[in-house]
């Protein structure tokens, strides 16, 4: 009937029982899925962070460099290694084509990490735990994060950022 005129009073035709039941089941599923999302936002432990600020790129770069200078403990392949303080915000810079610094975190300790880009958009992808966030220049994203396992974690960029996009890496060490 898809190309023919429907019954003029199609709006008054009765809907079959099974289709009615299916629509009802679907509506219930929709409401449940919505409520689950709301409930997890209130009580769940993994939620996309809500805290973000508009920043100018130079201001972010300046604060991040000062942070690195203050807490730097080592250097690895030219990238500073920083022991993240427990009572102060940490910084993570994304730029073509690396993340800086390498952050040393403690297991089960909560950190506030301020992330932004100094050039184009990047993707902050922590592997293999597989958590992904968008990094947008001009916006500072505050990730309040608690690593629950020990180890060395790779950061890869997962937003295309230029021809060397695939070499863009970083590291988080959880002790």
């Amino acid at each position, binding site marked *: *009937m898809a190309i023919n005129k429907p019954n003029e009073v199609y709006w008054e035709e009765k809907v079959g029982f099974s289709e009615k039941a*299916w629509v009802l089941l679907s509506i219930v599923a929709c409401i449940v*899925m919505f409520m689950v999302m709301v409930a997890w936002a209130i009580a769940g432990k993994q939620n996309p962070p809500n805290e973000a600020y508009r920043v100018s790129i130079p201001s972010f770069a300046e604060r991040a460099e000062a942070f690195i200078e203050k807490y730097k403990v080592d250097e690895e392949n030219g990238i500073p290694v920083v022991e993240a303080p427990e009572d102060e915000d940490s910084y993570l810079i994304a730029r073509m084509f690396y993340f800086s610094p390498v952050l040393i975190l403690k297991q089960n300790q909560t950190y506030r990490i301020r992330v932004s880009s100094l050039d184009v*958009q990047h993707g902050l992808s922590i592997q293999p735990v597989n958590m992904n966030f968008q990094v947008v220049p001009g916006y500072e994203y505050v*990730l309040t994060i608690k690593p629950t*396992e020990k180890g060395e974690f790779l950061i890869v960029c*997962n937003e295309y950022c230029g021809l060397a996009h695939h070499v863009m890496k970083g590291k988080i060490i959880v002790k």
Partner: protein
Amino acid sequence: MAEVLVEARTCPVTGLRVVKHAENLIKVNAVFAVLALLFGTIGAILIALTRWEAIHLLPTDLFYRMLTFHGMNMLVFWIVFFEGAGLVFASTIVLNARQVAPKLGYLAVILMILGFLLTNFIILTGDVNETAVMFTAYVPLKAHPLFYLGYILFAVGALIMCILFFLNVYNAKREGTYEGPVPLFTYGIAAAAVIAVFTLVHGALALGSAFLWSLGIIEVVDASLYRLLFWGFGHPAQQINLAAMVSVWYLLSYFTVGGVTPSEKVSRTAFLLYVLFINAGSAHHLLVDPGFGAPWKIFNTSYVIYMAVLASLIHCFAIPASAEIGQRKRGFNKGLFTWLIKAPWSNPAFSAFFISLVIFGFIGGASGVIMGVEQINMKLHNTLGVPGHFHGTVAAGTSLAFMGLAYYVVPLIFRREWLSKFWARIQPFLFGGGLFLMAVSMNTLGRLGIPRRVWETSALVVPYKELLQATLGIGAVVAFLGALVFILHTVLTIIFGKRVEGKPKFPEVVQVSNPDEKTSTPGTIVLAIIFFLYLAIMYTINWYWLSRVWEVR
């Protein structure tokens, strides 16, 4: 009303009046759709064989160039050209009406062709730093101005096509060529056209500002605002496809087995839900972005309490039910599934229709609902799971459904007999089967953390990575063959095929004598329940996976 004299013929199969100008527009759109599909297909195989890192075919810059080329041709040009043809068909031939302002119609299609040529030219020949910017072209990654200009010209052409659609429908009513409620197909395409209008306006805002910025006329485009506007275009653009594809499914179930929807009222309500709520889905791309709060994200990503998902669930029942009703009326009435087993699987339009329906639901639809959960998105954003999802929806779903329709367009509009029944019959299985394997591999790799849009992933140690990359690559090769068979067969048929005299011999159009009669649909009830359980299990598993990651807020 005075009859406006227009050149036309009567279709010997459907009895519809085919107006010359409308037919020409459909043909031009169809030809360029197939050309874009060819471009996209070449890009597809090259990038898939690079992502299969055991082969790793392309060097870096060519890979990113081809990725942009593939995305633009498939997601924008192939689909929108085909939809242009659908807009004309639904608003003229189906309504027994003429094409209003035929010159404006030709202008629209010329703009689309110019945009198509310009963008492809610059992607293939431009400085790779300015042209390998992907389909999304996120600022401040700056593309060549001609890239944006081509994009914009195409969008303006498409917008004019939409406006002409509404004028055609209005005119059909005014001139009295069509009275009463419009057919379901036209209703669905109208929904697609409404979605297209606000989609294209977003596109114009995002790409227009990026174009001015690339010329140096405006100094800065806010990266986050661009993302919001771009996805106001990029996501609903795929929802135009969704509405068009669902309309094509209804049409194909009617052509192939005489199917009728169990309830016009319910099916049409579902289309209305798409129009009202689907653009909220733009938020799917912004769920782990800075600058948008949880209430905004949750409200929008759920399409306002999943109202658009509800629409899809309605179609998920109504469409197989429609085929089941048609088959039962044709006498395949025994048991639960005789209608499906004895369906015309040797009619490529039917197999394309049903395979696209199943893959869309189980791979595309299910993964989309899961990925669109605000929290679960943290595990999937920008991973291979994203292209895994939309190769289930746009490629195996929309593209295959459109290919199914093309099996009728060639004999009925181009008036050529298909050269080979054999190749027509196996094509949907090749294309659908290959994409199924590929999309499942991509969805799995994505869940293991492998990113999308990346040339190599050697630093990532992931279980079964090599195996899954191989199945991805093999699936891509099979799908590539399926697409190539479709393209070559279509082109060769249009050039060398025998002219159709009277009714075409293949594929069959089922004649329905009692269109208003409906039967019960026990088989569809079982299929729908299986799908529901599958969705519930997948949804739950993904929440479990999320609960294992670090705490974050």
